[in-house]
């Protein structure tokens, strides 16, 4: 399943996309600890797979939650994306 968490508003589109088929293969979910803002949570999806999701309380403010990892100048690889061993995560902005 491709899960798009986030929103589109007047400022743009702010979605974190997680391929839960890939995510479900990962035992340790290192992306959760890698995020300095605690954006991610681990949950069981409706089909019984244990996957990473974006925390309900943070879905509507992703632009601001992720801001410190996205400086305006040189942007290093995002900690969450870098930590994912299966390449299951992307950001839309």
């Amino acid at each position, binding site marked *: 399943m491709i899960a*798009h968490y986030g*929103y*589109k508003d*007047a400022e743009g589109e702010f979605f974190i996309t997680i391929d839960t088929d890939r995510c479900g293969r990962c035992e340790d979910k290192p992306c959760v600890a890698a995020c300095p803002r605690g954006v991610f949570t681990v949950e069981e999806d409706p089909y019984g797979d244990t996957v990473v999701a974006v925390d309900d309380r943070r*879905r509507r403010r992703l632009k601001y939650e992720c801001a410190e990892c996205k400086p305006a100048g040189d942007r290093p690889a995002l900690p969450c994306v870098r930590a994912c061993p299966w390449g299951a995560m992307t950001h839309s902005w």
Partner: protein
Amino acid sequence: MMMVPREEYWRWSEASWADPDKHWKDARVVTLGIDVGSVSSEAVVCLDGELYAFNTVRTAAGSVESARNAMKGVFERTGLRFDDIHYVVGTGYGRVNLPFAHKAITEIACHGRGANYMGGPSVRTILDMGGQDCKAIRVDERGKVTNFLMNDKCAAGTGRGMEVIADLLEVPIEELGPRSFDIDEEPPPVSDVCVVFAKSEAMARLKDGWSKNKVIAAYCRAMAERVAALLQRVGVEPDFFITGGISKNIGVVRRIEEIIGVKALPTPYDTQIAGALGAALFAHALYLKAQGKPQAA
């Protein structure tokens, strides 16, 4: 000073139904799905995995109260009691607060399952236009979600946005869709990014001399363009199915179809109950699984 009661144009009709050809006492498994949404709450009863009865009410102040109101209507209509139900699944915004549900399942998965039942296994793309959010969902032939997007940050393109416009224009909400076609030519859309901006823009257009119908058309067009943009992020593959209260607004539905170039699948069901129906179907599968009679959940 005497207060004159103001007509509430936004009020949509609550609905209740039970299949007269079925009786719950003949069923082996009776399941209940409850969808507590931000604007409406629905209770659906399935008998052996088939739709039997439903009740739709406006959401009250609390999730539990809303669920009880929805259940009460369906119980009164069918003679069922809560103790007759084998398994209950809750969904929607208020799902985590329902103490009497055996399990809570996301509305994304439930809408996928419900749309699969209503539209059949050929449904691949679902648009759910709810009270305060909008979801674009892709499913496989069993109704399992393969791709989804939910936008619940902004009320533009949702039922609440339509309610605001109905009140502003003093037009009953059920009339908005048909009246949006009673125009000479399609106007440009009002702001498609914010209900507040759209409302003030609609007022400005009225002052410019636009008819109410023209303003309604411009708002329906704006909603259609907004949700079509969300659909394009997940991709549209036929068959296409629309659920949620706005699916009853022909003015929005026809304009979405025009923009994406795909017709929505017609259905005899009330598509507002798709989430609760999916929850009741999940409940049936989960009950069988718990009884040692596995079925895909």
